């Protein structure tokens, strides 16, 4: 009897602790309200997701085939590559209306904003160029010739370097943003998709979708220091296709979206080794952290959803249905 009673007490205590804990969780999450924006290339929409309730608040119609998206530095504007409309649309995040368009060159796929938010750099897959756009003057400033089918764009934290990848040339081009010249080219594996600097600027990570690897490049020597490879039991290596990369601010972990393998690889940066694979939706391509980096959101193109990953526990928490073929994702504080 005694034993049962104490066990029951223990049970109640556990429930209480759990309750308290979930209140604490809720409290901590309400501190940082944020919004998640997801582009859907099939539906021509931007889904607006509330970071707290994880519910889709609205779907905003934009131009044909929205893919790469980026936030302005003040977080008031979302720049959208509407690829089949051949321009960049500027979405006011207060009114959720497209206010104007920016020139971009044909078929813009991915864009990145310069360090002071004045210039936008867009990859034009159709004509082997990176286009530089002045967002205030709403003008194309110049174009930089790169390899065949430019795609990935990564800016160094000091704003001095832009690394662009070209999918058919299989290179990471190091572009000096002062002179706007390509100063170095690093050969990586087949079909490089995304370039991402570490927060200290010492490394650039480049994913090769068809090669199935991520090249970790030393930013100063421009040499590949490690090629990360991925192995998932039961999944053929050809289905493991790395695309999106996000690196935590403290430089401890990297999250890599593995496309049709429906997994996100978690990489220990100090060891440069994969520590875990997380099961998410199908054709996972891009991802972004919440402002406190407690969560990461992924876009799963084929299953039409966004997976929410708990970064501390490395568990997938929830899946949110969004517009068809979700592609890009950014989080606004």
């Amino acid at each position, binding site marked *: 009897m005694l034993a049962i009673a104490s066990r029951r007490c223990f049970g109640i205590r556990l429930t209480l602790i759990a309750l308290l804990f979930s209140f604490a969780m809720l409290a901590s999450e309400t501190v940082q309200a944020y919004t998640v924006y997801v582009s859907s290339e099939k539906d021509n929409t931007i889904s607006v997701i509330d970071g707290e309730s994880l519910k889709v608040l609205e779907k905003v119609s934009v131009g044909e085939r929205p893919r790469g998206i980026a936030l302005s530095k003040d977080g008031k504007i979302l720049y959208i590559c509407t690829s089949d409309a051949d321009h960049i649309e500027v979405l006011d995040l207060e009114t959720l209306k497209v206010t104007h368009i920016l020139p971009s060159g044909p078929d813009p796929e991915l864009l990145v904003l310069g360090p002071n938010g004045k210039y936008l750099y867009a990859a034009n897959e159709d004509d082997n160029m990176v286009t530089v756009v002045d967002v205030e003057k709403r003008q194309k400033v110049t174009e930089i010739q790169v*390899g065949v*089918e430019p795609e990935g764009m990564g800016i160094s934290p000091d704003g001095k370097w832009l690394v662009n990848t070209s999918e*058919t*040339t299989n*290179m990471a*081009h190091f572009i000096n943003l002062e002179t706007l010249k390509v100063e170095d080219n690093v*050969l990586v*594996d087949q*079909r490089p998709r995304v370039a991402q600097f570490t927060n200290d600027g010492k490394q650039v990570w480049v994913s090769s979708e068809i090669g199935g690897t991520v090249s970790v490049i030393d930013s100063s020597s421009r040499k590949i220091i490690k090629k990360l490879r991925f192995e998932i039991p039961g999944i053929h290596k050809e289905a493991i296709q790395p695309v999106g990369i996000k690196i935590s601010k403290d430089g401890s972990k990297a999250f890599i979206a593995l496309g049709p393998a429906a997994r996100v690889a978690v990489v220990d940066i100090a060891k440069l080794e994969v520590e875990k694979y997380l099961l998410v939706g199908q054709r996972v391509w891009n991802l972004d952290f919440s402002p406190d980096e407690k969560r990461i959101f992924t876009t799963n193109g084929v299953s039409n959803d966004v997976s929410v990953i708990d970064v501390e526990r490395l568990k997938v928490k929830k899946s949110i249905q969004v517009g068809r073929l979700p592609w890009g994702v950014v989080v606004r504080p």
Partner: protein
Amino acid sequence: MTLSESVGVVDEANLHAASGYPDIRLNGMELAIYTPNSIYRYNVEGAVLSSLELKNNNKRFHRFPVLISSLIMGLLIYVTPGVAADMDIHIALLSMEEEKHIPLSLLVPTIDDTGQMGAEQAISDNNTTGQFTGQSFTLTMKKVKPDTSLAEVFIELHEQGIRLFLANLPAAKLIELADLPQAKESLLFNIAAMDDDLRTQHCRPNLLHTIPSRAMLADALAQYLTWKRWKEWFLVVGRHPRDKAYAKALKRAAKRFGHKIVEEKAWTFVPGARRTDSGHTREQQEVNAFTQVGDYDILIVADEVDEFGEFLSYRSYLPRPVGGTHGLSPAAWSGVHEQWGATQFQRRFHEQNGRWMTDRDYAAWLAVRSIGEAATRTSSDQAGRLKGFIMSEDFNLAAFKGRPVTYRDWNGQLRQPLLVTSPRLMISVSPQKGFLHQHSTLDTLGYDRAESSCKQQQPR
């Protein structure tokens, strides 16, 4: 090349342009000059990369003042970063003049440069990469008349130092070239002959195939029909040996994937003119009568020569779909394909050539890109080294098919996913889900290692 030299190049181009101003475009480190009758392409050194006579071309000609274009060219050379081209890699494309083929449908263009334009696009892609690696690629086109000796042309190219060849030729001619003593140290890519024998018996160590075999195509279709459970086929075979070879591959695929050919008939009508006024009345009667057979799920047609396959859809006695060489067709490439980044690739090609890419264009692109990829990774232009890399574990090529393409080490065949298409949309891509293989699911298409008597070849 200096500014004054670049002006020289443009002047030279101006001489070529007998009538009107040339249209000058910069494409990477290449200068392309379009004149009403020809296209000339130069690299930065001012060397001619290729020249091409145009027939019935409908390109628009913008009239650029030559001097301004020269200035742009000069600027490009000073501004564009990279390495001076210090390795020239020469590739030759050999083809034979073929009888003009008039398609049965007015919507289908008559193409007389299939293969060549795919090779040109890959040369341009390779050269864009080459500007960063110091390699430049050139293509020499040789199209010979049927009564000219191909061997002589080959030997002449060999004497010029060319060791990398694309062959847009029938199987017999291809083997004849591969067996020449001069071809021993060369590498040949078959971009046209789909004969299964070339993959099962008549393999050559210096011969690779980027065009799929008939068996691969038939297996791709049969796998999709397994998924659909359209298991009973009515096979209609044309009168030419090529049609019969296609039918043979279909029969093998049917057996492999558990289908049954419940009816088989030979189409023996001798075609008259390809297109005639009121022709449809006759075709309506003919096909209706011809297809009065027992029940089946799908009519499968083997008409590679394209004499009658187009007539069958919507005219069969029973309301059944048509597949094979017409209707629901397996293909390496098609204008309907726009997955895995193919859109940009298709657009590039269409803008340049005013038509969609064919299987042979794609096979030629794959061959030249294989050479380019191997040259980039090995920094070599030696056929032997390039082949060594191409056949190694390290080689894989992104080819707009969603997964890397590689070569089978036993017979030199490029393994790749194949499209299952309708005339206007892509229907599916094979291998289908669930068809497994111990090495690569791509090897469920065509003759597998154990089924081929070719045991390759070079050390891996």
